[in-house]
């Protein structure tokens, strides 16, 4: 039912933090030991305005590891509070993730990263924007679902051995711990370079009774290692607390290594 009281975003005061103009790149984050976070690097000491939308941009220069993730945090040095955990960075690409998140004016924003390779280099910038009076609600923190910090990768969803046929649902989380106002869904296949096509179903509900909330989203994994779209753009699909979230897909490939996509789902808490 479209209608009711339609509100515009009315974004204002866009600020980009972490862009390195001198080399046309993004701020470098040195990762720790294998699959271990490195130290925080400050992107901005004090934001100049309130923010209601945060866009994370990661990648842009090839790292040595095959899979990386980046935490975005606010707060004083050594007291950072993570607001976007483990946003995935693919090799050979640069990704934008948009999150409706509130950050107060004057906040320090910092980031840190981990990789499948020790002392790797991740790259990050954020674009934040303020709003006018009648803006949409925005969350305060993002939950990361399906990501394994021990491998720096998401949950593998296998299309199965039959080409172009939906595989079984794979659970991303058994029960969400908070209401979400929307989702960012990120599929990747780190370390694999093969042109493959996928159609993806995202569902909620008990095993065997899944209800599809988004069907047949097309994902292309490229011969150069990146997955597009990466991620699927933020969608304001509300998810209640306690929901089981699962994903299934079909693939043009029957090869075990190329018919699989690793998913990480980011839920924006109400």
């Amino acid at each position, binding site marked *: *039912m*479209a*209608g*009711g*009281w339609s*509100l*515009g975003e*009315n*974004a204002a005061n*866009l600020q980009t933090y972490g*862009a390195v*103009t001198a*080399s*046309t790149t993004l701020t470098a984050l040195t990762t720790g030991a294998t699959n271990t976070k490195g130290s925080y690097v400050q992107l901005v000491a004090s934001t100049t305005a*309130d923010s209601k939308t945060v*866009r994370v*941009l990661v*990648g*842009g*220069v*090839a790292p040595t590891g095959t899979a990386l993730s980046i935490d975005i945090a606010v707060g004083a040095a050594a007291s950072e509070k993570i607001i976007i955990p483990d946003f995935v960075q693919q090799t*050979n*690409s*640069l990704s*934008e993730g948009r999150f409706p998140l509130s950050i107060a004016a004057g906040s320090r924003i910092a980031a840190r990263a981990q990789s499948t390779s020790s002392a790797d280099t991740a790259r990050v910038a954020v674009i934040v924007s*303020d709003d*006018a*009076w*009648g*803006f*949409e*609600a925005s969350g305060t923190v993002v939950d990361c679902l399906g990501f394994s910090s021990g491998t720096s990768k998401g949950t593998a969803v296998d299309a199965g051995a039959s080409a*172009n046929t939906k595989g079984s649902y794979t659970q991303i989380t058994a029960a969400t711990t908070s209401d979400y106002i*929307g989702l960012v869904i990120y599929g990747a296949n780190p370390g694999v370079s093969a*042109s493959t*096509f*996928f*159609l993806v179903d995202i569902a909620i509900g008990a095993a065997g009774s899944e209800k599809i*909330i988004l*069907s*047949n*989203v*097309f994902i*292309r994994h*490229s*011969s*150069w290692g*990146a997955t*597009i*779209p990466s991620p*699927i*753009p*933020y*969608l*304001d*699909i*509300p998810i209640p607390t306690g929901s089981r979230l699962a994903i299934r897909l*079909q693939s*043009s490939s029957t090869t075990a290594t190329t018919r699989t996509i690793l998913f990480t789902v980011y839920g924006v808490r*109400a």
Partner: protein
Amino acid sequence: MAGGWPIPRSLCNSSSYLQSLTDSIMTVIPSNVSANTVGSWIEVTSSSATDVAAVLIEATGNSASGNFQAVDIGVGAAGSEIVIAANMILHDYSNGACCYCLPVAISAGSRIAVRTQGDGASDSAQVGVITLDSGWTDTVTEGAVDTIGFTGSGTYGTSVDPGASANTAGAWTQLTASTATGYTGFMLAITRSASSGTAATYMVDIGIGAGGSEVVILSRYPTWSNNSPGVMTPSVTGYFGVNIPAGSRIAARAYSNNSTTGVRQVWVTMYAFRN
């Protein structure tokens, strides 16, 4: 000023069209036999099942003959389609794909159709469409999208040159001298030369205002291309809900870490949303 009365958006009732379950891709939408000319409309649905508050348009070029395609989406009876978003660029060279998330409104019962053009003769793109309805508290739901800076004769955007000095902003390049109406937000498509085989990094500024007095409304949006495919990632930005008044001059400038002609230039197209 954050605050006021925050209203939660809510999308629901998704419907998916044109995905091809038999090959896990999407439906081939033929372009014209002539390069850089739109082909015929292909029906997405004869009657949308619900009102629509957001549209995901995905495209890839697995069977394409050229390097660039552009997708139009329209509503209305066959032969009377009204374009609601035009020339959404796909750079498909070597496994490219794109996804546009448009906050546009379409009434329940509408016929929806798509068409394409490509920079190759008898080109094509494979296109899928996902629509989502909204709850009572509607999303932005604009009525239509104006394409600014698109070069129809080549199926790409306006060339923006960072100049011969690496890592330095080039001159502003005008995308439009004066917007015909006010806009509530925009997206960008950013591509580069079809098959440039050199890795390079880029940043793009968008400004409004008279030449020499541009005010930056989007600063240093980054994009990157690997050395193998030449495809930009991201090649499509998210939606920026920045209001642009009617009569505005819009311009873009760019940075690149590569100063080589043919590599350093980016092609910028703006999709501006209006009520």
